[in-house]
């Protein structure tokens, strides 16, 4: 157990050194888009709109935090791994060392979690300043951390799967971008017809947004959505282990 934790930290250590050197740039690039969404949707488009007794800003901020957790974790875990694997080709160094696939997958996931949390917390600070009604409860933190793990696992999986930079771009365009706009981040899914709703519940960000929003606004907590989110995380993690196992075929 100690050895597994040590190996996980060894994998994380190298990415933390990189983050320490580039933390400001990393943070800035992670929160620019969410802040633009906040300004455009929260202040621009959404002014005067209310959802279930909440102002649009109160409604949209938890969704944007979920979105930030997704992009920060996905890119934080997947992009560097992908670049190290395809462009710099230094990912083999991990495979040449006697550490387990489990430690490698978790270690590579944790840097995504760290980066996702860093960006989310920065946005949360902005959110609390703009919407003081936001509740940062232990449940909120649990959902946020879980979301970071889920999307970080996805980042590692895609980073291991992609055979080229185009593959990475294609995934972002076909999966991450639609998820950004359709997963209940900016609007309530209750307004949509049931078939559309059913499709959108296949996206993990939908469950992350709904759970985070419920926790932040003190609404009844959608445990089913939370467990669905955990389920996505497990599937992505198993996918990571499988992708690593297949890496020496």
């Amino acid at each position: 157990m100690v050895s597994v934790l040590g190996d996980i930290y060894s994998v994380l250590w190298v990415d933390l050194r990189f983050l320490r050197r580039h933390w400001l740039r990393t943070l800035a690039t992670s929160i620019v888009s969410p802040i633009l969404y906040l300004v455009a949707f929260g202040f621009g488009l959404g002014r005067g709109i209310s959802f279930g007794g909440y102002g649009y800003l109160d409604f949209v901020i938890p969704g944007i935090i979920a979105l930030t957790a997704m992009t920060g974790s996905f890119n934080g875990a997947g992009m560097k791994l992908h670049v190290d694997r395809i462009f710099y080709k230094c990912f083999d160094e991990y495979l040449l060392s006697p550490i387990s696939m489990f430690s490698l997958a978790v270690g590579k996931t944790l840097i995504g979690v760290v980066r996702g949390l860093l960006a989310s917390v920065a946005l949360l600070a902005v959110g609390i300043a703009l919407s003081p009604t936001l509740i940062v409860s232990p449940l909120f933190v649990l959902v946020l951390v879980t979301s970071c793990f889920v999307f970080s696992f996805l980042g590692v999986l895609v980073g291991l799967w992609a055979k080229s930079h185009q593959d990475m771009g294609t995934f972002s365009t076909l999966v991450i971008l639609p998820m950004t706009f359709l997963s209940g981040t900016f609007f309530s899914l209750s307004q949509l017809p049931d078939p559309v709703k059913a499709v959108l519940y296949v996206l993990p960000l939908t469950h992350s947004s709904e759970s985070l929003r419920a926790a932040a606004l003190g609404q009844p907590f959608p445990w089913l959505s939370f467990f669905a989110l955990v389920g996505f995380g497990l599937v992505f993690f198993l996918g990571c282990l499988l992708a690593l196992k297949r890496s020496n075929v």
Partner: protein
Amino acid sequence: MEEMIQTERLTKIYEGISAIQDLALTVHAGEIFGFLGPNGAGKTTTIRVLTTLTKPTSGKASVNDFDVVKEPDKVKKVIGVVQQHLSLDRDLTVRENMEFRARLHHLGASERKRRIDELLDYVGLTENANRIVEKLSGGMQKRVSIVSSLMHRPKVLFLDEPTVGLDAQTRRRLWELIRRLNLDGTTIFLTTHYIEEAEALCQRVGILHQGCLIALGAPLELRQKLGLVTVETLVNNKETRYQYFADRAAATSYVQKLPSEVKTIIIRDSNLEDVFVEQTGQKVDGD
């Protein structure tokens, strides 16, 4: 003699194409073994299989008596690998890259520091320890790659085209380093497509062509089989022909009897390129 690497009918097929085929190879402990062949001959695939990065399609391979398929973790503990491309993290310093490798191989904090200082001193990079790898010259980066792969004191060092892209002076410095490592007890398995590199460094070479081992032995032994002296002739200003002789007297005697239309006669020592050309009809650089 103790065997460090052994392969038996080792084959790797990618999408129906054999990258290596029925490779039977033995590398002795303590030697510098060179794998010579043109690009695409299967040298890197062989290294990837021997270092557990790629699974063979069939056949067997072992390093230090550990099976590369069944005991990959044991193999990883006794090997160091320097890949053809720079496999360092370019955004980190020299020391950070070395520390990273040391951590992956479970070296404790005090041992990490001692080993990093020792290896930096070994290759004369102590003053560059805190420089970002990206800012170093190609030769320095290669030296960092080599010492990073030595953190856990491997018994065998695999070097895939170690001097490709380096200038002549830097190449010779790396040769010195490789010889020193070998004298200090490390078995070296290197691939190259530079004839002079194989001849200068290796006690034995294997020549690989289209995935098949076509010659194996000491460079002098392989040359002796062919003839130690080569005569190059140009026929009708078009075709270069090669003839091989046991010694210069036999070569000179042959040249004196050549008809007048045969021009540009060169008499020189034979080399491993001649061995390759004779076996394959092609040059090692692919022409």
